[in-house]
């Protein structure tokens, strides 16, 4: 009884709550819910389902987090549940119709095996059951069953199960399924920005002019300053060996989000297999070589390494560990953050565990990625300083 009251007093609460949960960390806030109530009270959105949907869109759908199609599906799902619970059970009403057609069939002794029936049923979920079954009687081979009542029961049961699966709309189209989403990546890249004033002094400097003038006591000359430029330099090394195939998309997303909005001034991307060695490659096919010394020379740049460090294979491979450590020692003048797509608890007893002793290794959750970027921003060189002096 109290639940019913709640249900009426708080319309669309289920929808709102699910929206909050599924928005990749973005919270609408309870204020947004009260806004909805306010609007409903004045009579907006109650005229029709479309009207209500328009209202929900304007109040609750936000750019970057929600795609309209997905939003619509979620809305439809909750509205359907609402209608079902209030008006009794419209769904099961359909079943008696089909039961009737089935019993007609079994009476005619043209029954088929239950599996065939249910697979056909699911294929025709949207269409009129009557016309379809009529068609089947004409074309399909017939089998006679002894106990048609038993068969009927089996058919009904599988049918119900299949319909449950087919009509279940808990499957919503969502793009991001990694804990680290594109949006978080972009936000973190932005924080890495180092904007300095460099280059020829082309911009008029108001504050400088005023200062100069106050010192001199009169306005003699106008002062100029250099325009702001994005001086962030980031070098990313991506492991695209076969063991990383599950993470290629994540890697691509890291590259595209970094370059798309120009958060990073200069972003150099290189690829390697398993362990970076003397040569790295500017392309995924490993055709365009670049010697490691080129990178070593770019002093004081930030380096991001994206690799499972052997955690995906699940073994400790001493040669790999050694080679990696040797490679890392060459980078001791740089700030290095190692991003490992395998979750942290999977690093134990693999090469990754040992490599992580020499370099700051982060897993790809939103929080750890944020920490990785903070390391790259800071003056502190991290573990490399400790490991290699």
């Amino acid at each position, binding site marked *: 009884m109290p639940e019913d009251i709640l249900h009426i007093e708080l319309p669309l609460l289920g929808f709102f709550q699910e929206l909050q949960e599924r928005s990749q960390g973005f919270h609408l*806030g309870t204020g947004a819910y009260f806004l909805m109530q306010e609007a409903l009270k004045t009579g907006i959105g109650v005229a029709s389902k479309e009207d209500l949907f328009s209202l929900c869109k304007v109040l609750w759908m*936000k750019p970057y987090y929600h795609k309209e199609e997905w939003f619509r599906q979620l809305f439809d799902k909750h509205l359907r549940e609402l209608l079902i619970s209030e008006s009794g059970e419209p769904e099961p009403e359909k079943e008696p119709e089909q039961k009737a057609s089935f019993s007609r069939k079994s009476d005619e002794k043209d029954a088929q095996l239950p599996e065939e029936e249910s697979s056909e049923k699911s294929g025709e979920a949207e269409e009129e059951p009557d016309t379809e079954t009529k068609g089947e009687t004409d074309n399909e081979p017939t089998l006679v069953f002894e106990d048609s009542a038993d068969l009927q029961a089996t058919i009904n049961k599988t049918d119900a199960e299949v319909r449950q699966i087919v009509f279940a709309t808990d499957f919503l189209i969502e793009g991001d399924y990694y804990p680290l989403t594109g949006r978080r990546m972009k936000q973190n890249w*932005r924080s890495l920005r180092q904007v300095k004033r460099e280059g020829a002094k082309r911009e008029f400097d108001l504050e400088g002019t005023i200062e100069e003038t106050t010192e001199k006591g009169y306005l003699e000359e106008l002062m100029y300053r250099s325009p702001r430029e994005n001086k962030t330099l980031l070098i990313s090394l991506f492991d695209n060996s076969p063991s990383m195939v599950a993470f290629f998309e994540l890697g691509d997303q890291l590259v595209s989000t970094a370059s798309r909005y120009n958060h990073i001034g200069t972003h150099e991307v290189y690829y390697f297999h398993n362990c970076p060695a003397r040569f790295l490659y500017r392309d995924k096919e490993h055709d365009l070589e670049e010697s490691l010394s080129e990178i070593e020379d770019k002093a004081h740049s930030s380096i991001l390494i994206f690799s499972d460090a052997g955690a995906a294979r699940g073994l400790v491979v001493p040669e790999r560990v050694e080679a990696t450590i040797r490679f890392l020692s060459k980078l001791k003048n740089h700030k290095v953050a190692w991003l490992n797509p395998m979750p942290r608890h999977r690093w134990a007893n693999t090469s990754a565990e040992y490599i992580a002793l020499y370099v700051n290794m982060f897993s790809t959750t939103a929080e750890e990625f944020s920490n990785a970027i903070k390391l790259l921003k800071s003056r502190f060189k991290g573990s490399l300083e400790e490991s290699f002096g």
Partner: protein
Amino acid sequence: MNPLKYTGKKLLKAARIKREGLPDEVIQPYLVHEELSKAVNLAILLKRPLLLMGEPGCGKTRLAQAVAYELYHQEEEDRITRDYREWYFEWNIKSTEKAKDGLYYFDAIERLRDAQAALKLKEAEEYVHHRAMGLALQKSVASNQRAVLLIDEIDKADLDFPNDLLNELDKSEYTIPETGKTYVSPAKPIVFITSNNEKELPDAFLRRCLYYYIPPMKEGLLKRIIHSRFYSDGVPTADADLVEKAVKQFIEIRNRLEKEKLTVGKNVSTGELMDWFEALKFYHHLAKANGHPDPTTQALIEELEKLGKGARDIPYAQVLLKNWNSLVAFERM
């Protein structure tokens, strides 16, 4: 007083406003989708800013003016009894702006110059130039007299800007440190914010705004817009055939370019359709008046079915396809 409500029906035809000593101001017709007008009224009712996004040229910048015009402009027998311009304020964001810059600008250099040149130094207050947001805040009085403020291209500004902006809008007064004077803002203006999505906007800002995405317009609406804009006077008489074919061709181009979006960069917009139609209309009707049909528009009308041709065959293509990539992409198709 009636509560403020926007119907979108006041600018179905162009509005011509006589301005003293200046050429007439012309406001082109502005037709809205019913859903958008609902969103506008919701924003007015709930006193929240409305964030508008959509392809460049879809008309998001013009909405604020259309709303201000409908709500506030009154004329009686060709005389302005209430000018919408007193209630409409525009702020075009530049990348280095801070929220404070929308409120006012203190002309320190002018004051310095006056002091140096030994001219009569005016009161500090006189060097304050009130800006769009400040004016809008001061003008908004009771709930039925709220000024309309347009904040255009908010994504051009710095990351912290949108949150600062909302803080300023929420306050009921603001002080100018250079003069020490405080200005009161009795009510919140009706705020429209547009974004081109160059950079992403912060979460806190998104939470506080209502959001509407203007989708690419469909055939029916485009035809109505063309009729309102180019044929509302009745002279010349509308050529329904020309309109129909032009709109269909436009939509076809738009769909094709949408598929190649990444290489082309920029798709054709409603604004460009207007320019293109203007060219088409001019030459078409000119030729008609002269007695012989204009060969290029004739080609358009006759051969539009064969939509496999290149950009060169579209009359006045250069008005519609603005960058090299889109021409190339279209040729390739």
